[in-house]
């Protein structure tokens, strides 16, 4: 596109470019500055948060808010639950999605089209919130962490993308494996999965982020506060301002309670940090995932 540089170096073109760069920079900053402010605020003292409206580097550096968070049972427990559901739930997702996608990728399989149509129809129409809730209830999964993992074990959309990817693997490779005496399950484990690592990495991230961020399923299926994941706890603390009340009494009497605002910010940071840690991978893989999805198959 080098040829364009010449034609754009007109006064009007340069004015447009300048404005464009400024506008885009402002948009970019608008996307990340809230996080920078909240991270800065979570390390700031009570006095600083009330005296300075907006800042990105705290003058007073304190870890009070984090000490408070990690001294409460409720928040620490909810972090543990979120991590547990994210790890186990993602494994469940991968198991269900990959096995089914592999079977559906075989064109000769009897009944394949019927199953595929069942999957596609479920993308267009569904039972809805209440019937699904009642099914989960009938299975006695209410207040069980399995309710956060099983009802969403397969995303039909992801399943079809993975299936299409498996179909693209050259048949000769599998034939070679079969001649060498590999069983169907051995083929999946030793040939197809290793060849599909990029796609599997993408969907691992898709599912894991979904579990960490999930709020809806916990709201619907988990009533017991002792089993609330972090997102529900976050809502309690920030939106409903019910700070971990049970733990306030059991606290060390010498501990100075930080302002609510900085605790809220610290909890937000704790809820965001895992996502920001995997973000470099996310950006790379997710963009690919979106485009994978746009290919009809």
């Amino acid at each position: 596109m080098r040829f364009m540089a010449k034609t754009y170096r007109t006064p009007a073109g340069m004015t447009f470019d300048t404005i464009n760069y400024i506008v885009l920079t402002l948009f970019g900053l608008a996307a990340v500055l809230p996080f920078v402010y909240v991270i800065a605020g979570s390390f700031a003292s009570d006095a600083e948060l009330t005296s300075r409206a907006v800042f990105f580097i705290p003058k007073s550096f304190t870890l009070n808010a984090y000490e408070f968070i990690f001294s409460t049972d409720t928040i620490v427990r909810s972090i543990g639950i979120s991590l547990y559901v994210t790890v186990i739930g993602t494994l469940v997702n991968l198991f269900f999605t990959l096995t089914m996608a592999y079977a559906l990728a075989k064109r000769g399989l009897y009944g394949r089209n019927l199953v595929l149509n069942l999957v596609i129809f479920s993308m267009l129409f569904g039972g809805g919130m209440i019937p699904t809730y009642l099914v989960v209830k009938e299975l006695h999964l209410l207040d069980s962490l399995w309710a956060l993992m099983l009802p969403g074990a397969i995303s039909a959309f992801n399943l079809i993308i993975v299936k299409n990817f498996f179909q693209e693997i050259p048949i000769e490779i599998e034939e070679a494996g079969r001649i060498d005496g590999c069983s169907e399950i051995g083929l999946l484990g030793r040939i197809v999965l290793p060849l599909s690592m990029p796609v599997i990495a993408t969907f691992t991230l898709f599912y894991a982020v979904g579990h960490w961020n999930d709020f809806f399923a916990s709201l619907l299926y988990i009533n017991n506060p002792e089993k609330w994941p972090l997102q529900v706890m976050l809502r309690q603390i920030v939106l409903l301002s019910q700070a971990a009340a049970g733990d306030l009494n059991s606290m060390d009497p010498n501990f100075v309670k930080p302002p609510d605002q900085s605790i809220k910010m610290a909890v937000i940071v704790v809820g965001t940090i895992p996502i920001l840690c995997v973000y470099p991978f996310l950006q790379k893989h997710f963009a690919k995932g979106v485009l994978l999805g746009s290919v009809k198959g």
Partner: protein
Amino acid sequence: MGQISAQNHIPHISKKTPWRSSIMNRLRRDKWLYLLLLPGLLYFVVFKYFPMWGILLAFQNYQPFTGFWKSEWVGLEHFRLFFENPEFYMLLRNTLLLSFYNLIFFFPAPIIFALLLNEVRQVFFKRTIQTMIYVPHFISMVIVASLTYVFLTTEGGTVNELIFQYTGDKIQFLSDPSWFRPIIILQTIWKECGWGTIIFLAALAAVDVEQYEAATIDGANRWRQTWHITLPAIRSTIVILLILRMGSVLDNGFEQIYLMLNPLNRSVGEVFDTYVYAMGITQGAFSYSTAVGLFKSVVGVILVLGANWLAKRFGQSGLY
């Protein structure tokens, strides 16, 4: 699924076997594949098709204690109750208005954003901006709502502190009904606008540079090139996204609305999804709320298929 590629599975050619035993042979031959298929198939039956069957609740007076089989059938009674309820018009108005504002203010945003990014020639700058604007997409709705609260609350919220310093007054952003819709739309734009550019940028990357060269030689300026080359290149993408948007006119995103809803802004904030939750889960009116949900999803399917049909009439490829 019309894909032209090599057959993945070579069928065993069995000569002159009756069809019944050939099916049995295939089932036996593929038994491991069926074993692999089983967990996923069970998942779809239990968590997707059992609930669809559960829709029948909408025509019953379902009581958890009597159970599905013994509950009394009431036909369309719950639908009649729902349509005669004055809340129905409130829900319809709130849902449609939010979708309408979404269409007007949010839908064009990623397109404009992608066009602006497309004009950037410096690769490093473009990459940096993209890295920044994709971040909010991965953040949970709870965090987005939490950030909104931290900034806008009247008790020490950052924005309200600033307003207070200059005017001596505070604005009830979170409870004043007139602020509800603007906040929802702003949240959506902040969270999804950057991410929405990806699909347009991909379409734009596919445009042949020679087209721009030819246009330049023909004397087309930058604006003309955008109008005649860039925009047509993303037209079908826009149409497909519009179809999807049309099909989900009644979906306002449960989590977002639910998190921002409170008793003071309920008159503008309550939508079908949150109403189903409130009636069904909170109040236990299972049959009534199933009827409301069914009404919503049937209208949704009709809208998707209708928009798809329209798009085909106008010569676009459509989704199905």
